[in-house]
Each structure stands twice: as C-alpha cells, then as structure tokens.
C-alpha cells in the first residue's frame, strides 16, 4: 500500500535495507556501527557500504516508480535501517530543461537540477535528513554543524521537526541573511572568529567534550555525506534511467562532487542504469580554489588556502576534505575543475536568472560559469547531454548581486511612470 502525500516518506513494503555497515575508505577495515568517522587503524575516513547484489534483486524501476517522490525513494542505497516516518519534504527536486541558457552557452541539451527548492533552499537538506535519522537512533539530543550557511539552516529546520536542539557554528562574517535564516528556524548560532576551516576544526574538537551532540558533518559524516548521492539517483531517473554525458557541480569540500559519481556508479552496480563514461566538471571561486589550482598545475598535492577571499562564502573551504578525490575524479573522467572569478560568478547568476527564471546563490553562479569555461576549454561538447547541479537559492546571497544605490521612488502618475519607462528603455 502506497501513501501518496508528497511529504510522507513512508514507502512500500518492498523496502529491504541495503546498508551493510561502515568501512575505512583507505584501508578497508570494517568499523563498528556508530557515530564514527575515522578508522581506528589508519586514521582514514570511514564510508558506508551496501549489499549491491541483494539490492539488485529487490530494486527495480517499477518498485521505485510506486514510491513517493522524496528522498527515501532510493532508501536501499542510503545508510539507514528504515525510512523515517516523519521529517521535512526533501528531495525529488525538479530537473528542468534549459534551452535558452543552452543556446547562450553553445550547447544543445542542458538540464538544471534545481536543488534550490528544498525545504531550507539548498541541497543540504538531503544530507541532514539522513544525519538526523542516525542521530536519533544513536541517542543524540543536539544536532550541530560547522557551516558556511546552507548547512546551518538545514540543521535548524531538521532539528525542529525531529524534536532535537540545534546549535550551529559559523564564521563570524557569514552573510546576515544566512544567520537570520538559521536563527529563525530555531538554531542557536555561534559566530566563530575565523574562516570555515577554523570553525570545522573547533567542531572536531567539540565532539570530544560535548556529550549528546551530533555534529552532522563530523561524527556523522559517513552517513551525512551519502545524502548527496540522491541528487545523482534522481537525475538518472528523471533522464529516464540514464546518466548524462556531463555533470557540473560546485566544489566546497568536494563531498557533493564525488558523491555524484558514486550515485551514478551505484545505480549501474544494481542494474538500474547502464554504466556510462560521464565526465565530472567542478567549479570553485578563484579566491578559494585549492582543487582547481591543483588541477590547473597538474599537481598531485592540494595546498590549503589559509585565507579564502571570495564573495562565494558557501565554497570558501580552504582545506577541502575530499579535495584529492575530487582531483582524481576530474582527471579520471576527462572532466575539469574550473576557477571562477567573482565578477563572472555574478554574471552567471544573472544569466541563469534571465534565461531560465532560476535565481541561484553565488555557488550556483560558480557552477554555471564553470560550465561556460569547460565548454570553452573543450571538455564539454555542443551535443553533450549536460546537467548542472544548482545547489542553493539566490535569496540567500542577494547582497552579492544587488548593485548600485537605492532606486528613486516614482511619483504615482502616468507621466512619471512613462518617464521612468523611457529611461529604463522599456517603453
């Protein structure tokens, strides 16, 4: 029996868990189940594993099609035992065709995966939904995070609907709108004197001292990070069960970028799509481009950026946790990682808005501008099927694109309005 209400995550009885525990991504040692993120043996990162053979038997296009259009649609490939009965209405964001933007970029088949439409207006809701489910299971009472903005809002709202407390740590100079959003959604916001990497380090330390605190991007990271795969799962389903030729996404920590690849690979592993040579293009702001720099210089080392200097705050991570993996992904698939100047980011936000009616935040501008660069570089071809992942909503970073002094107020007369229209060139 299927419940069809869009925000009811309960799914059909066809669900059988596919999650098979945590394991070290570096040395392969299995890790005990729990809020762990580091291998005891080699200090490497832990990752979730799945029983792909079992999932292949139970999961099909038809079983998926019967389920509500929400995050838990692909629950077998998420690190949970059962989909929660409650929560925000996350996922199954629109995949919209972008023909007008395509023309401007010299492409024929461009899609926008519009994650600016999630409950707290960014893709992070996907990750936090899973983290919160686990946090509850492990008995945590407080949901916390280090954030450049989007994660903070998501943690706040998700904690609210899960009956947990939210405490978010952000760089003190974060955009006021993002702080306001998190506070309005019920979080206590700690403004830390330092850039994101310093905030993140503090979060690592506090997991030691603060009992009952689930820091979603730290001690729940192996679970949290899996949420990003659902972007790929949805794209594949929305493209009628195939992977695109090119995927473009912004790179902050590199988690989303690398999990997109994992998502398409897993769908192929369980027989839902054909394996295909998708290229992955990443975008970083020039003022904080540790991975793009390594890519451009053919280096095998990522030099952390100690003082990010860019308006794209959501990507201002000087020491990306998945930087090396991102580099490897771009190289292995014939993709690229582009550095984008702030002025081009702003132009790209406007271009997307004016061609397709989607207002994205600065990270989305980086993504579209990176796509443009990749086309110019020859990494993306005119006839490629291209999907650009738009990760956040433009209302979060309006300050970046508002220019000029306050507009004059127009007298409420037809003459005054006609004069204004003439001046604006819209008569």
């Amino acid at each position, binding site marked *: 029996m299927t419940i069809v209400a869009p925000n009811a995550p309960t799914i059909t009885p066809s669900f059988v868990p596919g999650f098979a525990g945590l394991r070290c991504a570096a040395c392969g040692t299995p890790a005990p189940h729990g809020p762990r*993120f580091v291998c005891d043996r080699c200090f*490497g990162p832990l990752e979730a594993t799945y029983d792909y053979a079992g999932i292949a038997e139970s999961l099909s296009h038809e079983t998926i099609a019967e389920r509500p259009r929400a995050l838990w649609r692909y629950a077998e490939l998420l690190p949970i035992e059962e989909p929660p009965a409650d929560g925000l209405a996350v996922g199954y964001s629109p995949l919209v065709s972008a023909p007008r933007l395509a023309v401007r970029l010299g492409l024929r088949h461009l899609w926008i995966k519009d994650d600016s439409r999630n409950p707290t207006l960014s893709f992070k809701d996907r990750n936090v939904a899973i983290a919160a489910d686990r946090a509850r299971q492990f008995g945590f009472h407080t949901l916390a995070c280090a954030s450049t903005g989007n994660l903070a809002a998501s943690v706040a709202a998700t904690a609210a609907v899960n009956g947990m407390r939210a405490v978010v740590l952000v760089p003190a100079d974060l955009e006021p709108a993002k702080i306001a959003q998190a506070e309005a959604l019920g979080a206590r916001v700690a403004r830390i004197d330092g850039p994101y990497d310093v905030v993140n380090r503090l979060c690592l330390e506090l*997991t030691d001292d603060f009992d009952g605190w689930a820091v979603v991007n730290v001690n729940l990271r192996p679970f949290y990070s899996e949420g990003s795969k659902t972007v790929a799962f949805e794209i594949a389903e929305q493209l009628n069960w195939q992977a695109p030729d090119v995927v473009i996404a912004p790179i902050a920590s590199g988690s989303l970028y690398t999990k997109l690849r994992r998502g398409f690979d897993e769908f192929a592993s369980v027989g839902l799509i054909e394996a295909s040579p998708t290229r992955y293009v990443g975008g970083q702001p020039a003022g904080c481009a540790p991975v793009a720099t390594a890519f451009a210089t053919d280096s095998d080392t990522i030099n*952390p950026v100690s003082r990010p200097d860019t308006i794209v705050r959501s990507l201002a991570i000087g*020491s990306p*946790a*998945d930087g090396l993996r991102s580099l490897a992904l771009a190289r292995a698939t014939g993709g690229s990682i582009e550095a984008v100047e702030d002025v081009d980011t702003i132009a790209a936000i406007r271009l997307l808005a004016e061609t397709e009616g989607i207002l994205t935040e600065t990270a989305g501008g980086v993504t579209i501008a990176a796509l443009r660069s990749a086309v110019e570089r020859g990494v993306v071809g005119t006839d490629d099927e291209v999907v650009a992942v738009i990760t956040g909503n433009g209302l979060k970073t309006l300050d970046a694109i508002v220019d000029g002094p306050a507009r004059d107020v127009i007298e409420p007369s037809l003459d005054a309005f006609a004069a204004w229209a003439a001046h604006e060139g819209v008569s």
Partner: protein
Amino acid sequence: MIKVRIPPVLRDVVDGARQLEVEGATVGEALDALFARFPVLRERLTTDGQLSAFVNVYVNADDVRHREGLATALGATDTVILLPAMAGGSR
C-alpha cells in the same frame, strides 16, 4: 614541556590520556618525543617517515601547514593538537 592533545580515536594507544606533555622546540621534535614514548602512534600516524595525510596538526589555533610545517617553533604555553583530517588530507 609542550602539551599535546590526543583525539579520541588514538586514546587507546596512550592509555586513555586526553593530553600528554612532551619536550620539543619544534612540532617535529614534540612528535618525535611522543612517538618515542608510544611507538604504536608512529605506526598509526606515519608512513615511511612522513606524517600521514589523514592527520592534521595544529599549534593552538593554527594548522601547521599554514606555518612552517613540522619546523614550526613551539613556546612553553603552546598546545599541539592532533586531529583527523577527515578525508583525503593534502597528499
């Protein structure tokens, strides 16, 4: 004496200590002193004499990669903090 803070994942190696004290004029010397006392730490944290890519080392609030790396000088009131790099690190 320099304080060295040990992350939870390594505490079983140092008999549960959260913080240890060692001698060292630089970060490198402090770590060597630590490894001399707890050889298993050297196994866990280094490969071929190099610090693992999965470890980040801080002196108070500063990542040593933004200072002079292992040559970063230490004062009597400094604390060296070892933390997981969370994923790929820098190498």
